[in-house]
Each structure stands twice: as C-alpha cells, then as structure tokens.
C-alpha cells in the first residue's frame, strides 16, 4: 500500500498506512508530549497531553489514537493546545509531588543540596529516585507550566515494599496505565489491574495482595515502562544516573535477549532490556532483568587461581597455576585427557577449547552439555532436514496460525519466546500444548494433550496418521521437496488410534482434534525442547516433529517450521564451534579426510580422525580410569548430569581435574586446580542464540579480582604446551579465524555485529544472514521422511519403583543454580526443591503438601519437600535440577539414545516415601 502524506505543523510528512498522527510526527522529528503512550503498547489516549488540532475534525483528538490519513493537516502546538495541556498537566500535578518542578531555582540545584524552602520530602523531585530520568519532568519542560494553582494533596498511600526486586509507590502514580497494559498486552500475565474508580482509581493487585500472590512473574516490564518513580527497582533506587551503558547479550537462556548494562564506575547498577533489536524488543524475564548484577558482583566469585594441597584449596599465581596445568596435561598419553567445554561460554571460548583439545592434546575427547539437551536435534533434524537448528526466527512465532508446543515449558524456560506464543494466541492463533505436566501455557492453550512421559513418538505418529487418513497432508510439498514418504506412510499402519490412546493416555478425539488443528491452520510452527530430546529415543522424537512439518508443508515458510528451543545462552554456538567429539566448527566431520586436511592446513598440525566419546561416555571412561585427566570449563556435571553419584565417583577416580569457572561449584570442589574465569560482563565475544543469531557480548566492567577470559586461559595453557596458533590478542581475531574455517559463519565479523546480530548461514561478508532455513530446498537437498516405531522409555515403573520421575525447570532459577542462587530475590520466588506430586498419589502415600519426602530410584535417593498439586500427572512426579542440596540427578537414568547419546532425564522409575524429618 502506498504511504500516507500529511502536513504536520506546515511540514510535509510521509508515513506508512496505519500509522498514527503521533507516529507520523515522531517520524518527522516533531515532538508531541505524551505520558500514557508507549511504542510497545496499543494506543490508549488517557493522559490527554498529545492532543492536536486537525483540520475538518471535531474537538481535540489525541494524536496517539488517531490514524494518519492522506491530506490531513495537523497542528501540534497552538496556544489553545498548550493552554489545555497546561490544564491537564496541572491536574496531574495536583496528585504528584512537584515542588521542585515549579521551583525557580531548579536549574541551580545540585544533588544533595539542602532546599531553603524545605518542603516535605514527599513533595520533591530531588528526593525522588527517578529524578532526571522522569518523563513527567521532560513533559513539564515542554509544556511550560509556571505554577500549580490547584491544591496539591499527598495521597498517603502506603508504599509496597513486600515483593522482591521492586517497590511500588502509588503516591507517584499518574495512572498512565502503562504497567497494567504491558502486563496484560505484552506479558499476558494480568497480575495488576486498575482498581476503584473516579478520583480513587489506582493500580493494584487483586484484593491488594502482594505481587507474589497475584501471578506476577517479576519480569520487570512494568518497572521499565513506568514514566515516574512509582515503580522502581529497589537496589537501583539511590544510585543516581549511570555513568555509561553497555549493550550486551543475556547470559541466561537461549533466547539471546539484548540487555543494557547500566554502570556506575565498575559496578552494574541496573540491567534493562534493550528495545531496539529484533530479539526481545524491550522485554526480558526475571533472571535477565533482576538476576545479573548480584551474581556478577557476588563476594563468592573466584578471584585467584586455586591449587589443592592436602585436600585444601590454596591461592596461587596465574603463572604457577598455568604451568602446573600445562605440565600435568602434557604428561598423559593421547586419549587419556578429555576436554569438557561449556554452552555458557562464548563462541570464541568454545572455538579455542575445541582447538586446544584437537591441537594441543591431539584428541577428539571433547564434548559439552549440549549433549544433555539438544543432541537429538542435531542428529534428528540433521537427518531429516540437514540442519539441527531452529528453522525459523523467534519473532515469527507470534504470527503463526497454529503452534504445537510439545515438551517445552516455554513460559519457564524461554520466557521471552513465550510472549510470542501469547501474541499468536491473542491474534487468534491456535495453540496445542502437549505436556504431561499442567504447565503455565495450558492456561491459554486451545488444546492440551497430556501424554504420558516418553510416549511422544506414538502421539505424533498418531497425529500424522489422522492427517494422512483425512487427506489433510500437502501432497505437492511432499512430492517436490521430500523423499521416502511411502515408507513413512507404511510405518503409520502401526499407529491406529486405539493403540495411540492406550500408549499415550490421550483420548482419541483429542488426537484427532490436534491433528486437524495443526494441519489446517497454516502457517503452523512446532516448538519443542527437552521434553522431546531428553529421552532414550530422543532422535526419534525429533524426527517425528520433522515428519509432521513436512507432511503438512510447514517448512521453509515464515512462522512455520520445526523450532528446537535451545536451553542455554550459547548452546547453539558451542555446537556450531565444534565443541563436540565428531565435528569441527560448522558441523564438519572429523572423519572426513578432505575436512581433516583443511583443518590440518589451517592449524598446522596432524589431526585425529577418530571421533571421541560423548559426555556420558567420557565420565564412564573416567570411572573405568581409561581417561585420567579432564579439563572442565564452566560446567557443573555433579549437579547437572544423570546418575550424579556415578559422575562424582568418575571425577574422584581421575588423576587430575582442572575446573575453570566463575564460582567454586560442586564440581570445582573436586578439582585439583581451579582457574577463575570472567563472567559474561567482563569479556568480549559472541553468543549464538536459539534462532542461530550471532550476537555480541561486550565487556562492561574490568574482571573481578584476577579472573581471566576463558579463551585467554585456554590459550595460555596451550602455549605452555607448545601448541601453535594460540597467540590471540582479542576475541575479534578468533572470530576471524572461525569465519575462515566455518562456511556458515563465513560472513560474520565483530565489525558487522556492531550493527546487530546475524543469523547463520551467513557465508559471505555481504550476506544478510538467514532468518528462515530450507526455503527453496532443504539443507540436505530433499527432506527425508523417517518411518518410526514406538519404543517405551528405558525404565518403566514397576512394583518396587511405582512412579515416574520427570525433571523440570522453574522460571526464577537457572540450570544448577550457580548464578541464580546467588540472587536473594530469585531465591525468594523459588528457593528450594518442591517435588510436584498429584493429589491422588499423595493421598495414597499419606503425603501432605509441605511434607518432606524421600524419592528413591535404582541409582540413589533424594530428600525434598512435597508439593501436592494437580499440575502433576497422576503417577508422575516432577522435580527441578536447580538445587544441589536435593540433587535430582542422583536419581535420573543415564540410559542413552543410541544415535545422539543423550541420557533419559525425563523418565525414570522411582519410589516416594514420606520422610520423618
């Protein structure tokens, strides 16, 4: 559609169709004062400051709500408008402390000045934490109000201090409604609302209860949009203005939110989501918004290298520590050392780590925790499509007509992507949630399929069968773009709906409804996470999603595809960097002679073409003393890996263990040498988020203590081991090397990333990146249908262990808690393990809510508090793995998927007993 042309204050303005007058004015750099307007919210028209005069229009329309039309003639600053604005602002100020606003000495008043007029502290801007960041002050200056003649009254509303992270002082509230709207419209939480009416109207929670009881997720969106000091982060309140701000990437989940770190000196005083980007568009979650500064500046951060002497850690110098590590590692035979890299580290750190293993140690004994989360995505989607990454981009999800979210608790694990799901639903999209647990998303799902843990192949094959039987598939797409359909169709014969209903526990009608919803509402997008992958048939599960998508032609188009939601901040990147036993960066096989030759030429050494063992296999080998030393970077397997007792024994069996981390984790405590690494805030580099977007991590503060960046430490060890090619001066150089050797990263450089992230494949320096994969053809050529069979989980409940244990995650905690448990506010939200158990199971076992229970599997036992809740499926209990004092992974089953070698975290058989204490 053609653009609209209009005249604003005698200026010709051209804007897109559908733009408002306010947006048109902004585009033309014409300022119109606003308070209730916010670009991420729908027009509201409440504050009435943005009124304008429009020719041929009655009254004084608000520019924020009035659509611009062709030929419109607008005036934004007539004497009448200014007079009414002064009137409106004066009314606002009768309820908002303003003594300083109208003070004629305000220009000369500095911080900490004592005011001779000495009004009550509640009436002053200089005693407000939002001073000089307050939008009311900006508006006031434009409107030129000289005095407030109407009587001011302090409303004497008690200030809410009771919740974690931020205070609510409604005495400063101007009822712009931004907080209420962002909570409802963008976050879908609805934790706050308008209460009362008339002059008593206010923002509040239901029955004025604390936010913690009102469904608040503490995402901080309300704080971010509040124009005044009504909502303020408690810790940040009296810090004044920041000296500077640094844009970087969030270190938590794989969404890759862009965050502004606001700094004062060498201290982070506030972390705010950046709005000027494609990924999070001004949103964050509780961890990114409030869970960063406290762990970065925590006094338990490792500040010096440690060496264990007589069972005790002793501080040492970098020189000594590095020399020790290098000389020890040099002393083992080839294949006796393994490197475990980290999905939390940057691409550059990971690249250097894998190069270290391959060049300095001459081994492919190398893996990292991606093995435990998305290995089946790499194998499964690799086999079906040729690439194991998300086919589409996060923000497309909001425009999908149908979303199948299977095995993902997106609201808890990828909160900002969950907003896209909410957006899709609000736009009328259908949401099918398939999950054994009644997760938060069920609240707004069109359909909830509550399959038994581990029955996903049957469920999806059942859906595929309905789609084929009812002719809802896309024959043209199947013919042109795929292969092996006939064999796949044949395999559907085993999945008649009676069998599927019996196997999954999902009623037939629901399976049919799901199949129809998915096949007929296009574009349809599949989202999945560890509910599918962490299974002894994880690869089959992933292939089943690929089959469904190809069957309905939902690949290669906007808002469609198969989208594995990557868990950690850089799990995509660490795989891309080849921190895996079988591939070099860019998934180039170590067994391929041509590729081996390429890397040998580049790195100047002979390389090993034998793929190494995978993560669980490394610990098995260590247990069997085949592997004698491990160089472990930024992981905590004692808490995170399955059958943790076994892992601990394996680590104890080692001759030499080096752990490199930011805290003395449970695993680090077992180490011989501990090397202090920098956190994300102290280093440069890149993370690749779940949608394949490579984004910059920028150094915001100097390293804490003597901490050093991981790439630097690894390089130093390598150099001491006389390995070549480790003379890096900065991560930018490392990225240049990555780009030279990795086709999909070929066009990526720090220079280009300054302008924003790039989605791989980005083969050349002029390539714009690839938001959607497989648009014209699949990466592997034709999409491959895989016939599947149902296989039950490796361990099923029996008499002795009658219940199923599945592992889960909470929004306010992250992974093994190394970072999040350093944040008191997050602990206040979720601070301890709660075993979710269905009321029926609980009552059969005589367990009441809050009782301590003992959970026992064939591998170990754990004691924790029970939470009796209907969110748990009958027969299934759920536990988190955030809490080292109740390490659920002592129970989990290390049974592996034969292809991807992922262990089966999601299903094991347990017994639950009421515990005496």
């Amino acid at each position, binding site marked *: 559609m053609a653009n609209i042309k209009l005249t604003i204050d005698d200026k010709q303005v051209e804007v897109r169709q559908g733009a408002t007058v306010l947006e048109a004015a902004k585009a033309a750099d014409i300022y119109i004062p606003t308070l209730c307007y916010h670009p991420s919210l729908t*027009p*509201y*028209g*409440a*504050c*009435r*400051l943005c*009124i304008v005069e429009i020719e041929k229009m009655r*009254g*004084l*329309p*608000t520019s924020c*709500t*009035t*659509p611009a039309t062709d030929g419109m003639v607008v005036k934004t600053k007539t004497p009448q408008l200014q*007079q*009414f604005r002064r*009137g*409106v602002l004066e*009314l*606002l100020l*009768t*309820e908002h402390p303003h003594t300083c606003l109208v003070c004629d000495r305000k220009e000369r008043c500095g911080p900490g000045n004592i005011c001779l007029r000495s009004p009550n502290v509640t009436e002053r801007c200089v005693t407000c934490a939002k001073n000089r960041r307050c939008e009311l002050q900006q508006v006031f200056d434009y409107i030129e109000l000289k005095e407030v*003649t*109407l*009587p001011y009254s302090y409303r004497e509303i008690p200030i809410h201090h009771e919740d974690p992270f931020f205070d609510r002082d409604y005495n400063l509230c*101007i*009822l712009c*409604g931004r907080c209420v709207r962002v909570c409802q419209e963008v976050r879908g939480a609805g934790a706050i*609302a*308008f209460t*009362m*009416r*008339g*002059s*008593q*109207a*206010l923002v509040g929670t239901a029955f004025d209860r604390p936010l913690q009881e009102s469904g608040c997720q503490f995402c901080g969106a309300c704080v971010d949009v509040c124009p005044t000091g009504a909502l303020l982060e408690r810790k940040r309140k009296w810090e004044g203005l920041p000296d500077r701000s640094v844009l970087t990437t969030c270190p938590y989940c794989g969404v890759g939110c862009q965050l502004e770190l606001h700094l004062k000196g060498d201290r982070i005083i506030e972390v705010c989501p950046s709005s000027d980007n494609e990924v999070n568009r001004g949103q964050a979650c509780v961890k990114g918004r409030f869970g960063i500064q406290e762990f970065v500046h925590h006094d338990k951060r490792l500040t010096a290298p440690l060496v264990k002497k007589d069972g005790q850690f002793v501080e040492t110098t970098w020189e000594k520590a590095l020399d020790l590590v290098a000389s020890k590692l040099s002393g083992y035979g080839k294949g006796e050392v393994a490197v475990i890299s980290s999905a939390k580290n940057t691409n550059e750190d990971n690249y250097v780590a894998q190069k270290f293993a391959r060049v300095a140690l001459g081994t492919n004994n190398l893996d990292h925790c991606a093995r435990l989360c998305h290995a089946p995505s790499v194998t499964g989607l690799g086999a079906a499509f040729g690439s194991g990454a998300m086919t589409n981009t996060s923000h497309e999800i909001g425009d999908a007509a149908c979303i199948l979210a299977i095995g993902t608790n997106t609201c808890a694990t990828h909160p900002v992507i969950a907003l896209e799901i909410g957006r899709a639903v609000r736009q009328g999209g259908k949401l099918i949630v398939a999950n054994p647990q009644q997760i938060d998303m069920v609240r707004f799902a069109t359909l909830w399929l509550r399959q038994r843990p581990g029955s996903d192949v049957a469920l999806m094959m059942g859906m595929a069968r309905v789609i084929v039987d009812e002719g809802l598939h896309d024959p043209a797409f199947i013919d042109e773009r795929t292969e092996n359909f006939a064999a796949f169709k044949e395999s559907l014969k085993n999945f008649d709906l009676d069998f599927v209903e019996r196997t999954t526990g999902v009623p037939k009608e629901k399976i049919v409804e799901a199949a129809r919803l998915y096949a007929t509402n296009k574009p349809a997008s599949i989202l999945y996470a560890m509910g599918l992958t962490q299974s002894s048939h994880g690869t089959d599960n992933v292939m089943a999603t690929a089959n469904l998508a190809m069957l309905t032609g939902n690949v290669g188009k906007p808002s469609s595809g198969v989208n594995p939601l990557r868990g950690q901040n850089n799990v995509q990147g660490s795989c891309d960097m080849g921190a895996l036993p079988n591939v070099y960066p860019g998934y180039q096989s170590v067994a391929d002679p041509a590729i081996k030759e390429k890397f040998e030429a580049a790195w100047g050494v002979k390389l090993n073409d034998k793929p190494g063992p995978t993560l669980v296999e490394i610990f098995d080998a260590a247990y069997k003393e085949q592997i004698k030393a491990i160089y472990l970077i930024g992981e905590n397997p004692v808490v995170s890996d399955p059958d943790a007792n076994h892992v601990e024994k394996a680590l104890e069996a080692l001759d030499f263990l080096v752990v490199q981390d930011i805290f003395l984790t449970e695993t680090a405590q077992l180490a011989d040498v501990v090397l202090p690494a920098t956190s994300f805030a102290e280093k440069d580099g890149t993370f690749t988020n779940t949608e394949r977007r490579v984004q910059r991590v920028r150094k915001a503060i100097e390293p804490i203590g003597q901490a050093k960046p991981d790439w630097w430490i690894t390089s130093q060890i390598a150099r001491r081991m006389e390995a070549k090619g480790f003379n890096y001066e900065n991560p930018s150089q490392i990225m240049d090397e990555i780009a030279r050797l990795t086709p999909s990263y070929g066009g990526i450089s720090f220079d280009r990333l300054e302008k924003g992230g790039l989605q791989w494949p980005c083969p050349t320096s002029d390539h714009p990146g690839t938001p959607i994969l497989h648009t014209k053809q699949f990466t592997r050529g034709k999409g491959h249908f895989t016939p599947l069979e149902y296989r039950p989980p490796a361990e099923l409940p029996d008499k002795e262990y009658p219940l199923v244990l599945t592992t889960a995650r909470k929004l306010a905690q992250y992974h093994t808690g190394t970072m999040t448990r350093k944040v008191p506010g997050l602990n206040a939200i979720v601070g301890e393990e709660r075993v979710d158990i269905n009321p029926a199971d609980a009552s059969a076992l005589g367990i009441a809510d809050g009782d301590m229970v003992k959970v026992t599997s064939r591998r170990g036992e754990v004691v924790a508090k029970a939470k009796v809740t209907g969110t748990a499926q009958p027969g299934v209990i759920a536990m988190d793995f955030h809490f080292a004092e109740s390490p659920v992974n002592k129970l989990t089953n290390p049974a592996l998927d034969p292809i991807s070698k992922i262990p089966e975290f999601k299903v094991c058989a347990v017994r639950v007993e009421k515990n005496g204490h």
Partner: protein
Amino acid sequence: MTFKEVQEQAVAEWEALQQNQKPRIFVGTATCGRAAGAMAVLDAINKELSKRNIDAIVTQVGCIGLCYCEPMVDIVKPNRPRITYANVTPEMIPQLIEDYLVNDNPRPDLAMGTIGKGSVEGIPDFMQLPLLKPQVRIVLRNCGIIDPEDIKQYIANGGYSGIARVLGMTPEQVIDEIKKSGLRGRGGAGFPTGQKWEFCQKAPGKERYIICNADEGDPGAFMNRSLLEGDPHSVLEGMLVGAYAIGANHAYIYCRAEYPLAIERLKIALKQMEEYHLVGNNILGSNFNLDITIKEGAGAFVCGEETALMASIEGKRGMPRARPPFPAIAGLWGKPTNINNVETWADTAVIMQKGAAWYAGFGTEKSKGTKTFSLAGKISRTGLIEVPLGIKLREIIYDIGGGIANGKQYKAVQTGGPSGGCIPANLLDLTVDYESLAQAGSIMGSGGMVVADEDTCMVDMARFFLTFVQSESCGKCTPCRVGTKQMLNMLERITRGEGRPGDIEHLQELALMVKSASLCGLGQTAANPILTTLRYFKDEYEAHINEKRCPAGACTALVNYYILPDKCEGCMICKRNCPVEAIAGDRRMIHVINQKKCIKCGTCLDMCPERFKAVTKVSGKKIAVPSEPIPVVAKPKATQDTKVAGTP
C-alpha cells in the same frame, strides 16, 4: 403454525378476553408500583377475591407512567370501560371490591379515569386528563395495558408484524425506511439511526453484532426500565429489525443489574420468542438467524458509554476507549457493532409496524417522533411521559407535570441527567428537540428531567451532579479523573462559604478544559451542570462567593436560624425538639439559638407553630436577637385566622 395463524389466534384470544364475562383486575407491578406497595395491594386483592369466591382475572401490568399515583389498580367489568384507581392501599381493597364488584358501584370518588370505549358517570376519560392529553404514547402504547409476560397480548396489538414485514424486504429497504422515519438515537446524542445502521451494515467483515444499551444510569431517569418492564417485546422486536437490516446474527442486551424485574421479564420474553420461532435460527421460517444474550451490567455509570459497555461485555474493566475505530467498524470482539438505546430499538419496531411516514408525522422537521421523559424533582406529578418532539418545556412542566409542588416558584429544569444542563425558568417556551436543548447548553440525554424550585440552590445542584460524575468517572483520562475532583472541591468550597474571588473564572476555565480534553462522553459532559448554571445562575455563585449568601437558603453552611424576639411566645416547642439542645429559654421567655451549637437541621423552623412563625432562616445576614433569653413582652392578640388554624 405460520405467523399469520399465530396472529389470528392471538387477536381472537385478545378479543375474547375483552368480551369476557369475568371481571378483570390490573395491578401495576413495575418497580415504581412495587416501591409504592403494589405487591401488598395485589396480595389483598387475591385474598379478598378468594374470600368472597369471586372469579376474576388478575393481571400484573407495567407502569402506565403516573408514578405519583402508584399503586394503581384498574378494574374492568363486562361492557364497561376500564376504571383506574390511584394511590390504592391494601386497606381500601375489601371496600372497593365490595362496592364495585359486588354492588356495582364504581366509586367515582376514588376513581381517576376510564380507559377504553364507553364512559362512567362521574369519572373522566383517563387519556383526556390534563397530564395525559398532551402526550402521544407510541413507545409506551402497551405499557400498563397489556400483560408484559404474555407474548400473545403483544402480538394481538400489532406486535411482531414489523419484523414479519421486514423479512420480506431487503436490508437496504429497511434502512431506507428507518432513514425516512427521521428517527434519531434516543440515548441522547441524537445520531440518525438509519445512517448509523448503514455504517455498520457496510463495514467489512463477516460477523456483526448489535447491542441494546439498557444501562440506564442517570440519577432520576427510569424510562428504559419502565419500558422493559412494561413491554419488553417491543424492544426485542426492534432488535430483530435492526439485526436483519445490519446483517447481525448476534445481539446483546446490556442491562443494569439493578433492574432485576426488567431482566426477569426479558428472560421470559426471550423464552416465549423461542416458542414462536422469533429468535434463534430461521426466524419465522426465513434464513435469518439471531441469538440474543442478556448481559447484566457491572454497576458502573460509565458502562453506558458504548466503548466501555463493549469492554464490559468482553469481560474487561468498563473503560471507554478512543475512537476511531468506531464500533460500526470495530466494536464488540473487534467486529462491526451497532449499539442503540432501549427506546430507539422500540421505536424501530413500531416504525416497521406502522410505516415511516406515519412516524415522521410526529415531531419537528429535524427531530421526528416522540420521546419519553422521566419527570422528577420538585414537580407535582412525577412520572414517565411520552411527548412529541417539539413540545414546549412549559407544556411538560405545567400541563403534564402540574407545576411545582407546594405552590413554590419554578426555577429550572435539568435535562439529560448529570451530563446535561440546567435550563432556567425564563426559557420555559423552549421547544424540546435536540437542537434547541443543545443551544440552551443542555442535551436531550436519555430523557431525565429533574425540576428545581426556588428552594434549590443551583450551585448546590451543580455540586450534586459533580459528586455523581466524579465518583462514576472510570479514572482513565486525566481531565475527567482529576478535573472532576478539583471542580467538585471548588464547588464544595463555594457552598461552604469559602469561595474566593477568581473562583468563578477558574471554575469556568477548568470546566472548559475538562469538556474539551476528556476522552469520552462522561468527561466531555461532566462539566455541563457547572457551565449551564454559570451561564444562567452566575448571580447565585457570586452571592455565595462575595456575600457568603445562599439565595435559595439551601447551603447549610451559609444559613442561620434565628428566633425573632418580637414573635416568640416562649412555648418551648422548638426547644424540646432541638436535637442538639442548642436552644435556650424557659416558658414565656424569648428563646435564643446558640449559633455555635446549631447544626442547621431546620427542626425549629418546622416545629414553630404556624400562628407564631417565630423562627426564621436567613442567609448572608445577621439578625439582632437577645444574647440570652428574656421575658416575653405582651403582644397584641393573635388574629382570628391563626386562632382557627391553631384550634384542633
């Protein structure tokens, strides 16, 4: 059964009822009747009939409009017109039944009028009574006449013939006919109804909604309630007509929850419509489908504003939103939606029954047809009326309303509820139509008329309405939320005698700003009572501010009571009745009011015997009285008149 057969049957039954040999008794049991005790009267009738073993048909009907006469009972005996009795009490019933039903004495002394053919000696024709003669009952034609819980009585009186006719027309033809009728929205804004329907009909989209706005919230307004209670089918038929014309298949009636009887009668009506295929799928055998949902309001005045109303139906907080987009384009659930008020819908039904030309024959050139008003306040005959537009205010207030009660002086009338304005006595010859009322600074509104007399302080009246809109503001937009509060504060200050020079200008400025800058109709009209009283009664404001005087003597803070020494006889009646013991004085001592203790309740003034008239209420001046009680000095004898009045 075809609809024609239904009609024939209904008419036959109606005729049979009229020819019936049993006596028929009608009791007005609408909310106004019930408030006056109609249910007890009904009870007494039933008891008396069974006691005497009289076989009579007792019917509950809606309000005929004469609220001041409630409870009203009508009795029909064969071959006699219907006789209306006013202000009936349960105690009167045995005698009335004995006199009229048993002894055939129609008691002309108790009767108010006759309705229908024939006459009874000594009883006037009800419709020729001065209060009814100027009225034209179109919307209210059935109210008080038919049984609102019997669809057949509605059908027998021409009901649903409008929709039957409409189903044979194209939607465009229906809209055209409504346009020709000149009907304008009776909710108050007066937008041409046909044009409004056309906007919605032409809006892009498959699904459309219509809504009946029955959230009548103005203090002193009860037109819609009476209509829904007395003749719900007329509104429902209008909705069928509109839905057909617009192409809507879903309808909502948003009725305030404070109208339980109206809701109950609507529910009964809907059920009966289902029986006769007048709602649901394939209405009257056509392809036209309409479902009608009753949605009870959430108790907020602002929910009468259309965008707030839709938000409320959607389950959200009832807050208005900015337009565009207009509801005709994106209304309920984002779909094209047409909202009309109860009376407008009822009008469209009768227009389709009797034709546009007939309807356009009433009213003025720009304001066609009739309008219902509720007359309240200091008027002699409160009630519900329906008059042709273009009638003079004088006719409404004096001919229909009977002027001011207790012989007081007429001062002003507030039209349009709290959003309307005060029209002063010197504009009594103003014609009541949309344009004239707007020109006078007021609005038609949904039809509330509150009459003020000489005892009404106009500043206080403005304050009263401001109190209402201030507490009913939704709190969304700044001018309305804070502006109404600040204006109210100023008015309260002025009525307390704490007004300051410049207040009037400031108030005017604030009022204009709130009017211009508010988001919705509530805020935009909230200042009307102030603006019109400032326009017509500025002198009262000035008296309050400059002289600390309330000319009407209504603002207690500005009023003082004194006992006149030359009139007080020391009878001690006022002293004994003073609730705060503020009066000093013994027998035959001139009493003195302690002004510091006095709470200005006026009891002394009311209690002082008429023959003395010793207590006086003054504002803005002081009266010299003794500081302490002193003996009464002998006075000339009281006149003959007062003696008579004083004799028991």
